[in-house]
């Protein structure tokens, strides 16, 4: 995969060189299909990936992550650091200097006031901004002059690149959105459907949840870009249909997020009309163990600390055996193909954070798993299911509805049956499972099951907030309305102490060391069982060049460099 992305990278670099002499709009029309249709082009009002990525063609942040996860200046000339004086020595503020001469698509100039406005827009509590966590701890944003903006924090920020970095935090135009603050934000339909941006394209027509028509931005900062004069950005259907339209019928040039059976995808790719590309970020498909008791007889105390410990999952031997019995490589091969690889870590990237201390689980060993259980005193009963002191190893295993997840469930169920563990499968509609409805028993926060499976990830490259998910205070429970990220109900003071240390450590090497130690503690104590490091998989037509797959930012981050082969 690395070689492929490297090759693609050079191809892109080459194209950049060759494009310099081409004219804007000389390559005609390009068709993009996202099978989840964009519903709005303002990522502050909708955090959905489809909305963030479609809007990234129009509005841009100050800096982006490139395909290797490195910060890349976008609307600025350089990334502020402590060394170049952009970040204050006490780590309490960061100062960005905009590149002079950048224009909005209406011809007016981009200024620091637009950046300040963007921050205020998202921080208005009445607006329900979906990205407000990126602006957490921001105490003040001010424009020092027309091109300089200073963001101050109320606490020390060892990693100050939250605000205005990445596709989720683009700069919007003050002149356009000035009347759309706070409670007024959702009413500005015209603005939300057609934001004025600095990006390579401008919206000409937006049909919500259907199709966006765009054309090249006449005021884009590079006079030779974009190569395409117009874009159709279609949404709808399903992943298989999107893949078919690029790889088989050739109606579209680029299709996003093709999570379908790898056999079908490779068969489609054999047609020779296009190419499947993938790359890896931080997403990990994992099993979340429930350390509290989900017995329905407990009523209100179900799956809470007060309900008491889980009857058998609190036994570390059981958790280890469950993990060792799984053939992760096979799961990756069957369900994900090029878009998945086995992992034993909850932090799978970037490379400097990845631990190798847990690689025991990479190899499936049913015999070893059986021995572990046997040694821990779990004996097989007459029906082959192990039990100890009247407690049977019987697991309710829930996840959201999705073809790949159901295949994974079936495989895992079979392996667990080989080590004497009985499994009941349950799948729940994704909108219920991931929704936070208080009255529903089926949300992933409530975790009214023994094991649940889903994917989690962190955006950008800094895992601090992500690692903070498993401290004691993050446990979902009735008193905090089941809001919290600590689904396993894991609680270890040593882990909490490391999380606190991470929050005050600035040196990148030290941060990596702490993150690795935290990851290892979670893995070795079996709070969760990671399965697959998931990549993004997309497809582009052979007639489309310049595509560089990027998992750290929007997939369409370099759409200005795309060209017709």
């Amino acid at each position: 995969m690395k070689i492929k992305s490297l090759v693609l990278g050079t191809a892109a670099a080459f194209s950049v060189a060759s494009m310099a002499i081409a004219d804007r709009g000389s390559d005609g029309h390009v068709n993009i299909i996202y099978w989840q249709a964009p519903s709005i082009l303002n990522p502050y009002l909708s955090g959905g990936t489809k909305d963030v990525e479609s809007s990234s063609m129009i509005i841009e942040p100050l800096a982006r992550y490139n395909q290797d996860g490195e910060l890349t200046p976008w609307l600025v000339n350089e990334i502020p650091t402590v060394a170049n004086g952009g970040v204050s020595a006490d780590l309490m503020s960061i100062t960005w200097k905009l590149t002079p001469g950048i224009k909005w698509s209406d011809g007016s100039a981009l200024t620091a006031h637009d950046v300040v406005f963007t921050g205020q827009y998202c921080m208005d509590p009445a607006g329900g901004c979906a990205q407000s966590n990126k602006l957490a701890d921001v105490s003040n944003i001010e424009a020092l002059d027309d091109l300089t903006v200073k963001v101050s924090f109320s606490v020390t920020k060892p990693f100050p690149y939250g605000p205005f970095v990445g596709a989720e935090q683009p700069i919007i135009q003050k002149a356009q959105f000035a009347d759309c603050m706070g409670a007024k934000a959702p009413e500005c339909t015209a603005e939300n459907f057609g934001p004025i941006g600095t990006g390579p394209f401008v919206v000409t027509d937006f049909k919500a949840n259907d199709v966006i028509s765009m054309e090249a931005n006449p005021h884009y900062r590079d006079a030779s870009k974009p190569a395409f004069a117009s874009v159709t950005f279609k949404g709808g259907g399903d992943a298989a249909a999107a893949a078919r339209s690029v790889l088989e019928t050739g109606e579209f040039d680029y299709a996003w997020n093709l999570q379908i059976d790898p056999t079908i995808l490779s068969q489609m790719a054999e047609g020779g009309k296009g190419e499947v590309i993938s790359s890896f970020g931080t997403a990990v498909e994992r099993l979340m163990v429930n350390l509290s008791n989900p017995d329905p007889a407990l009523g209100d105390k179900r799956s809470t600390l007060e309900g008491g410990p889980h009857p058998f999952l609190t036994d570390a031997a059981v958790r280890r055996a469950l993990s060792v019995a799984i053939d992760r490589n096979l799961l990756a091969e069957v369900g994900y193909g090029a878009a998945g690889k086995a992992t034993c870590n909850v932090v799978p990237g970037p490379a400097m954070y990845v631990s190798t201390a847990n690689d025991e689980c990479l190899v499936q060993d049913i015999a070893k798993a059986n021995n572990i259980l046997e040694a821990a005193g779990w004996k097989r009963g007459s029906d082959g299911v192990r039990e100890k002191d009247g407690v049977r190893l019987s697991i309710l295993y829930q996840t959201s509805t999705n073809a790949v997840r159901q295949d994974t469930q079936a495989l895992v169920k079979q392996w667990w049956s080989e080590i004497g563990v009985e499994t009941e499968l349950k799948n729940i509609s994704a909108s219920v499972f991931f929704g936070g409805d208080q009255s529903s028993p089926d949300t992933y926060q409530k975790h009214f099951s023994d094991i649940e499976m889903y994917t989690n990830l962190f955006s950008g490259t800094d895992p601090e907030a992500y690692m903070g998910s498993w401290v004691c205070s993050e446990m979902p429970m009735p008193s905090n309305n089941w809001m919290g990220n600590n689904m396993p109900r894991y609680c270890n003071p040593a882990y909490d102490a490391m999380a606190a240390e991470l929050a005050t450590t600035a040196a990148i090497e030290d941060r990596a060391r702490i993150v690795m130690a935290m990851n290892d503690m979670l893995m070795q104590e079996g709070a969760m069982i990671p399965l697959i490091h998931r990549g993004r998989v997309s497809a582009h037509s052979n007639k489309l060049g310049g595509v560089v797959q990027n998992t750290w930012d929007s997939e369409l981050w370099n759409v200005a460099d795309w060209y017709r082969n």
Partner: protein
Amino acid sequence: MTEELTTKRTSQWKDVWLQFKTHRGAVIGMIVFSIICFLVAFGPWFWTLDPNYIDIRAKNQGPSFLHPMGTDQLGRDTFSNLLAGGRVSLLVGVTAMALSVLFGTLIGVISGFFKRLDGPLMRLTDLFLALPLLPLLLVMIMLFRDTLRGLFGPETGIFILIVSAIGLTSWMPIARIVRGDVLAVKEREFVLAARSLGTHNTQMITRHILPNVMSPIMVSATLSVAAAIITESALSFLGLGFPSDFPTWGRLLYDSTNFMKLSPERVIYPGLAISLTVLSVNYIGDGLRDALDPRIRGR
């Protein structure tokens, strides 16, 4: 008097059977349907491969001696899945059909026959027609899944839930259709004649009205078997159906749709099973309708 009536009754049912036998399509339909039911009920005893057993090395295989209908993407045997899936699909189809026909006919006849009840019952029908199925199911699952799971176990519990959900949301067209016909039938001369002979309402409905609205009921019944099987598959696909280790024909068909080009036979078998069932049920329905109609029976 009573004796005379019973003997007359038995001979009438015999007549019905004799007439049914002369309907070639119905007899063939009956045979095919019996074979399907037999295979589905007893097949798993002869074909003992576990439908959920995964043999990953044998994935996506074509038909072979070991797997007469090939295997799926995880190496599960298609034939045993078809047998196991048939049990669920047939049960869902027939039970949901029975429920909706019972409900629909009852409400249709009552509201067509009794003018006073027509308004309220038809407005109730309108209400049910307007309810969106998916949110209704989400609510039903939220409220009842755990209770039913506790009472009947995970599989029977969800079965009851799904069958009642499909039945509860598909009786309305039948009710409307039956009512429309009842409105017309009850104005015919023979009803007036029966009424002047002093026939009671109950008898009027069972002896005179119902037999005359039988054909739309039969058509609705056969169509609703197919509709129930397909609705179930749509529900599984939305995550509201049976657990994933619980094969059904609809789910098999849905899962294999994307494999259409790779292994076409995988799509054909479940599709064929559903079509055959629906066709045979339809011919049985046709035969029954003819057999129950005294005017045709005489011919």
